[in-house]
């Protein structure tokens, strides 16, 4: 693996260094970022947490960084030794049930006429894709998924809905996503999943993580209700890569 993608340092705050990779997002960059993140957390003293963007890592220390050039040197050394220190964490693939019918698919008919694709074609295009989880942001448990079929690209609503129901599966611009909780939002709703994306009672509140992959499969309303009663995400883990 090429782990020599160049990155830059930016001191954002006395406790924070932002690392940025100057290229378009790719699964290769993502793999390196998640691998690097795991190693920083493992080997860097005093780092309290790291958040991921498409092409950046925000590294936060517990205290003010006293020796910036040392901190920088340590990060560079860690990065160049990535493949020596460890192998990337295993990623998982999740197959989530989605009901694309009736009340759950508020905007499917509208999308179908605007995109000039039948509802079934939209469902097929949407569910057959294998999406990559880049990171979680916007809302607790909101997955940034990459891989939406370009035939389904559609601009966001000009006036966002005030309430989008929990579990709504939606399309906005070049992205698709699942609303983990009721919230306002400007994306077009095409279905709903009965699986909770964010549950604070679980040890890890969101089952998916950066680098995992995910696909959808269509279920009818009866099946949806059945799955909702059990609501066990682990049942939808298909394979560990």
């Amino acid at each position, binding site marked *: 693996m090429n782990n020599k993608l160049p990155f830059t340092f930016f001191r*954002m705050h006395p406790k924070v260094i932002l690392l940025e990779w100057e290229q378009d997002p790719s699964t290769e960059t993502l793999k390196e970022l998640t691998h690097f993140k795991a190693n920083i957390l493992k080997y860097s003293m005093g780092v309290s947490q790291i958040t991921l*963007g498409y092409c950046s890592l925000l590294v936060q220390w517990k205290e003010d960084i006293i020796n910036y050039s040392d901190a920088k040197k340590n990060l560079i050394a860690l990065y160049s030794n990535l493949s020596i220190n460890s192998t990337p964490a295993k990623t998982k693939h999740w197959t989530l049930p989605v009901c694309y019918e009736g009340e759950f698919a508020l905007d499917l008919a509208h999308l179908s006429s605007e995109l000039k694709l039948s509802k079934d074609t939209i469902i097929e295009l949407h569910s057959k894709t294998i999406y990559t989880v880049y990171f979680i942001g916007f809302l607790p448990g909101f997955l940034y998924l990459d891989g939406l079929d370009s035939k389904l690209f559609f601009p966001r609503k000009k006036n966002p809905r005030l309430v989008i129901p929990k579990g709504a599966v939606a399309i906005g611009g070049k992205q698709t996503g699942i609303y983990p909780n009721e919230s306002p939002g400007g994306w077009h709703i095409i279905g709903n999943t009965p699986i909770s994306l964010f549950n604070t009672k679980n040890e890890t509140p969101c089952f998916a993580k950066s680098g995992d992959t995910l696909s959808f499969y269509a279920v009818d309303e009866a099946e949806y209700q059945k799955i909702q009663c059990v609501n066990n995400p682990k049942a939808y883990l298909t394979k560990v890569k």
Partner: protein
Amino acid sequence: MIEILKQGWHTTIQDLGRLGSQSFGVPISGAMDLNAFQWANKLLNNNSSAACLEMTSKGPELKFHEPSFIAFTGAIMQAFLNSKPVKMYKPIEVKKGDVLKFSSVTLGCRTYMAILGGFQSEKVLGCRSQYKGVTLEDRIVKENLLLFNRNAFTQKGARVKTKTTDYKDVNLKVYQGPEYHLLNSHSQNEFKTKQFTISPSNNRMGYRLNEKILQQLPEIWTAPTLPGTVQLTPDGTLIILMRDAQVTGGYSRILQLSDNALNLLAQKSTKDVIKFELITL
């Protein structure tokens, strides 16, 4: 325990924040003015992470069903214990049956009330700060009781010399943000010279400013943000992210507030004037 007779305008339970869960998209939360929050706990010799009430604009009306000690810091909001005015920045003994009321805030925006041993509310992901979708409630509600540890003790007469912040100070010390260099010299100069005012759209998530910066910057690949990050939207609006802000964003990050500036801004509200003072790291 404490009975909530009136909720106040917007009263939440806060502590130091939910650090470490940002990978799941969970905002940091925590007291908006961490400085005042920490003083409140110090006055009672509490643990630095003990949960306090954050009272915005007008505090609640509370009835104590157990004795304890309390202390107030932050925005000037006159408190009355059984109708008698009590002082801020000083431990106050409360007895069973006492009723606590507040006037509206006269300087600043958020007042903190600490209680001996801290409030024993629901803890989610290691933290008691209330946030919609994470804790059961996003503020204190009348139907619930506020619990605390009645057996907590303190060395009596704990006195702390306090150095309070001047809430009238309009200068916010800021660092350059990651996209600051994309601004032309005219826009950069505006940040150095212009006064900005806080719009009515200000809350625990973010403060929008009235004045715009008329330079269009491209949206960025969604990237991490922090409390205190100043974003510039494509229509020129400036948004300062506060403690409950989302952990990533797609707008240019122009400035980053220093910790003191973020605490000071938390004490400002609609129509208040601010100026940015750029400092280097």
